[in-house]
C-alpha cells in the first residue's frame, strides 16, 4: 500500500502523457479513464490512513537526507480526498462541457493532458516531504494551471494567464531561494529532518519569509492576490473551478504545513500571526469588493480571495492547538470551500451556456427555469456563509471554539464577521436568481451532466457538515499538527 502513495501522482502523470500523445482521438477517453483510476486510488489511500494510520515511503528506497520521502498523514489524506472529489466531478463536467461545442479547435484535447498534469502536481505536493520536491511540483502546477487558463480564451484570458504566470514564477523563485537557504543552513531538504535541525536565526527567518511569500503569491494571499480575479474569471468554467479550489488550497496547505513543522519551532508565533492578519484583511476587503461586482465570475473569483483569507486566519489557531480539533476545522474549511466553490463555478458555466453572457442580470429567473443550478448556488452559498448544517459551519465552529479556548478570541470574531460579510455577495447572487426576469427568458439548453455535477459538488459541501466525527478521526492520523504543541 505504501507504493500507492507515489502512484497518486504517477498515475495522472502517466495519463497526461498518454492523453497528450494520443491527441484528438483518444485524449478524452484517456482523460476520463485516468481520472476514474486516480479518484479510486486517492480514496483508497485516504481510507487506509483513516483505518490504519499514516503511510510513508522513500522513493527508490533511498532514505532522506539522500533521497526523497513521501508521506500521507491525516491532513494529506484529507487533501487527497478533496482533490479526488472535486477532480472527479469536474472531469465529468468537462467531458460534457467541451463536447458541447463543435468548433474545430476548442481546446478540448489540450484540456485533458493539462488537467491530468495539474492533478499529478497537486498529489505530488500533498504527499511530498521534501522541500525541493515541493518546488518542482509547484512549477509543474504552474505550467499546467497557466496553460489551462488560456484554453480557447480571448485577449482577457491571455492577459489573465500572463499575470498569473509572472506572479507564479516570482513565487516559485522565492520558494527556491528559501530552499537554498534552508539547505545551506541545515544540509538537508527533508521536512522531518529540517524540523529537527531548525534553529532561530537570520537564515531561517529569511527562508521562512521567502517561502511563505512564494506560496502566498500562488495561494492569492492578500495583498498578493491581484492576479487571481482576472485569471479565474476569464478561464473556462471547469478550469476556474479547478484553479479556485484545488490550486489555491494546495498552496495554502503548503504554507500551513511548513509553518507548523519547520518555521514555528524557530520563529515562534510570528509567522503564523502575520499570516492570520493578512487573512483577516483578505476576508474584509475581498468580501466587500465581491459584493460590488456586476460580473458573476468576477464575483465568485473575489469570493475565493476572501475564503482563502479564512484559511490563513486558521493558521495561528491551528498552531496553538494541542489536539487536532482546530486542524480539523481548518481542513474542513478548505474542503468545504473547495466543494462549494467548484459547484459555484460549474453552475456559473451552466448559466453562461444558458444565457450567453456573464452579467449578474442574466441570473434573473434562473431559480425557476434551471432549478438544479439555482440550488447549486444556494447550497454553495450556505456553505460559504458558514450556516448550519454545512461543512462551512462545522469548520468555523471548530476553529472559533479552539480560538476562544486558546484565549485568542479575536480570531473567532474575524471568522464570524467574515460570515456576515460574505452575506453581501452570496445574497446578491441568490436574490438575482429568484427575481423575475424582465423579459421572457430564452435559454439555450444546458446539458444535464453539467447541471447535475454542479449541484452534486455544492451538495457535497453541505454533506460534509455531517462528517465531523469521521473528519476528526482522519485528521488525527499521524499527528500532523503535533508541531503545534508548544
Amino acid at each position, binding site marked *: 500500500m505504501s507504493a500507492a502513495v507515489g502512484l497518486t501522482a504517477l498515475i495522472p502523470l502517466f495519463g497526461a502523457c498518454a492523453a497528450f500523445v494520443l491527441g484528438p482521438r483518444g485524449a478524452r477517453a484517456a482523460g476520463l479513464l485516468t481520472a476514474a483510476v486516480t479518484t479510486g486510488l486517492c480514496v483508497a489511500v485516504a481510507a487506509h490512513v483513516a483505518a490504519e494510520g499514516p503511510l510513508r515511503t522513500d522513493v527508490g528506497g533511498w532514505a532522506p537526507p539522500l533521497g526523497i520521502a513521501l508521506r500521507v498523514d491525516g491532513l494529506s489524506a484529507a487533501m487527497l480526498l478533496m482533490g479526488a472529489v472535486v477532480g472527479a466531478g469536474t472531469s465529468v463536467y468537462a467531458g460534457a462541457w467541451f463536447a458541447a461545442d463543435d468548433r474545430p479547435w476548442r481546446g478540448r484535447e489540450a484540456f485533458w493532458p493539462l488537467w491530468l498534469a495539474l492533478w499529478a502536481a497537486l498529489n505530488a505536493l500533498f504527499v511530498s516531504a521534501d522541500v*525541493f520536491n515541493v518546488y*518542482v511540483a509547484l*512549477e509543474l502546477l*504552474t*505550467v499546467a494551471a*497557466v*496553460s489551462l487558463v*488560456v484554453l480557447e480564451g*480571448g*485577449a482577457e484570458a*491571455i*492577459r489573465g*494567464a*500572463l*499575470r498569473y*504566470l*509572472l*506572479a507564479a*514564477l*516570482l513565487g516559485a*523563485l522565492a520558494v*527556491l*531561494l528559501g*530552499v*537554498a537557504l534552508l*539547505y*545551506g543552513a541545515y544540509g538537508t*531538504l527533508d521536512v522531518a529532518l529540517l524540523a529537527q535541525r531548525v534553529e532561530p536565526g537570520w537564515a531561517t527567518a529569511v527562508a521562512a519569509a521567502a517561502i511563505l511569500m512564494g506560496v502566498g503569491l500562488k495561494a492569492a494571499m492578500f495583498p498578493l492576490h*491581484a*492576479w487571481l480575479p482576472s485569471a479565474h474569471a476569464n478561464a473556462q468554467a471547469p478550469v476556474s473551478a479547478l484553479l479556485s479550489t484545488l490550486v489555491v488550497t494546495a498552496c495554502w496547505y503548503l504554507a500551513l504545513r511548513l509553518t507548523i513543522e519547520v518555521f514555528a519551532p524557530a520563529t515562534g508565533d510570528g509567522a503564523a500571526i502575520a499570516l492570520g492578519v493578512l487573512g483577516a484583511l483578505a476576508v474584509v476587503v475581498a468580501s466587500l469588493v465581491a459584493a460590488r461586482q456586476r460580473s458573476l465570475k468576477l464575483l465568485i473569483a473575489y469570493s475565493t480571495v476572501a475564503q482563502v483569507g479564512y484559511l490563513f486566519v486558521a493558521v495561528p489557531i491551528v498552531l496553538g492547538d494541542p489536539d487536532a480539533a482546530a486542524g480539523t476545522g481548518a481542513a474542513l474549511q478548505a474542503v468545504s470551500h473547495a466543494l462549494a466553490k467548484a459547484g459555484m463555478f460549474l453552475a456559473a458555466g451552466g448559466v453562461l451556456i444558458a444565457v450567453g453572457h456573464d452579467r449578474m442580470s442574466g441570473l434573473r429567473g434562473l431559480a425557476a427555469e434551471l432549478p438544479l443550478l439555482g440550488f447549486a448556488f444556494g447550497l454553495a452559498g450556505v456553505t460559504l456563509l458558514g450556516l448550519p448544517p454545512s461543512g462551512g459551519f462545522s469548520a468555523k465552529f471548530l476553529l472559533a471554539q479552539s480560538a476562544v479556548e486558546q484565549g485568542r478570541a479575536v480570531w473567532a470574531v474575524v471568522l464570524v464577521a467574515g460570515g456576515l460579510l460574505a452575506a453581501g455577495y452570496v445574497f446578491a447572487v441568490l436574490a438575482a436568481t429568484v427575481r423575475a426576469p424582465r423579459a421572457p427568458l430564452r435559454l439555450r439548453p444546458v446539458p444535464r451532466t453539467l447541471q447535475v455535477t454542479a449541484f452534486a459538488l455544492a451538495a457535497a459541501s453541505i454533506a460534509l457538515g455531517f462528517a465531523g466525527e469521521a473528519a476528526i478521526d482522519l485528521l488525527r492520523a499521524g499527528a500532523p499538527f503535533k508541531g503545534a504543541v508548544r
Partner: protein
Amino acid sequence: MSGAPAIVVIYAAASVVLVALAVRALVARTDVLACIIALNVLGAAVFLLLVALARRAPDGAPDPVPHTLVLTGIVVAVSLTGLAVALLRRLHDETGSTDLDGEGGER
C-alpha cells in the same frame, strides 16, 4: 559564514547583487518582456547562490546535490520562459500590443 573559501564569498555576494538588481527591475519596469528577462536573471542569481554554497567543503570538493537542483532549475526555467514568450506572442497577435492594461510586472 566564517571560514568560508574566498570563491564562495565572492559568488554569494554576486548572487545578492543580482537578486537586488532583478527585484528592482521587476518593480520598476512595466514592459512584460523586460519582466520575464528580469525573472530569468533572478533565477540565475538563486542558482549562483546554490552552486556557491556547494563549494564550502574544507577540501574543495563540491557537493553534487545543489548541482542537481540547479540543473533541474535550468530546465524548469526554460519551460516557463517558453510558455511566457508564447503567451506574449499570442497577446501581440490578437491585440497588436503587449500591454497588460496599464499593469506591467508581476501584478
